[in-house]
C-alpha cells in the first residue's frame, strides 16, 4: 500500500505545480497585456510581441527576486508576519 501513499503525494505535488504555473501565467498576461497592447489591432504586431517577451522575462525575474527576498524575511523570523500574509 506504499504505492497508494506515493500516488497521493505525487498527485498533490502535481496539483500544486499546476496551480502555481496557472497563477503566474494569469499575472503575466494581466500585466503584459496592459503594458504591451494598449490599443488592440487586427493582429499582434511585432513590436507588441517583442514587448510581450521582454515583459514576461521581466515579470519572472521579479517573481524570483520577490521569492528570494520574502523567504529571507520569513526565515529571519519576522514573527507572525508569515501567518498574517496568509490572507493575501
Amino acid at each position, binding site marked *: 500500500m506504499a504505492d497508494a501513499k506515493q500516488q*497521493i503525494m505525487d498527485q498533490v505535488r502535481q496539483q500544486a505545480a499546476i*496551480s502555481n504555473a496557472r497563477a503566474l501565467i494569469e*499575472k503575466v498576461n494581466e500585466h503584459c497585456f496592459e503594458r504591451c497592447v494598449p490599443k488592440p489591432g487586427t493582429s499582434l504586431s511585432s513590436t507588441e510581441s517583442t514587448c510581450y517577451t521582454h515583459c514576461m522575462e521581466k515579470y519572472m525575474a*521579479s*517573481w524570483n*527576486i*520577490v*521569492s528570494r527576498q*520574502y523567504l529571507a524575511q520569513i526565515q529571519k523570523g519576522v514573527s507572525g508576519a508569515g501567518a498574517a500574509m496568509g490572507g493575501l
Partner: protein
Amino acid sequence: MVAGLNDRDKQELQQFVQSESQKAQIQSAIHSLTDMCFKKCVTGRVASGKLDRYEEPCMQNCVDRYMDANMLVLRHLDQLRASQ
C-alpha cells in the same frame, strides 16, 4: 485510496499535506507581492527582459517595506489590545 493505508502512512500523509499547504500559502503570498511590487517598480516602457538598476532594488525594497508595514499593523493591534 486512503482507506487502505495504515496509521503510519496516514500520519505521514497528513504531515505532507500540511507542509504542502504551507508552501502553497507562501507561494500565493509571493504571487500577490510580485503583482503589487511590479506595478510600483516597473513603470517605464518595457524595453528589455532584464530588470534595470532601479527596478531590481525597488522590488527588493518593496518586499522589505511591505513586511515592515505588516509588522507595524500587528504591533499597533497588539498595543490596542494591551491598552484595553
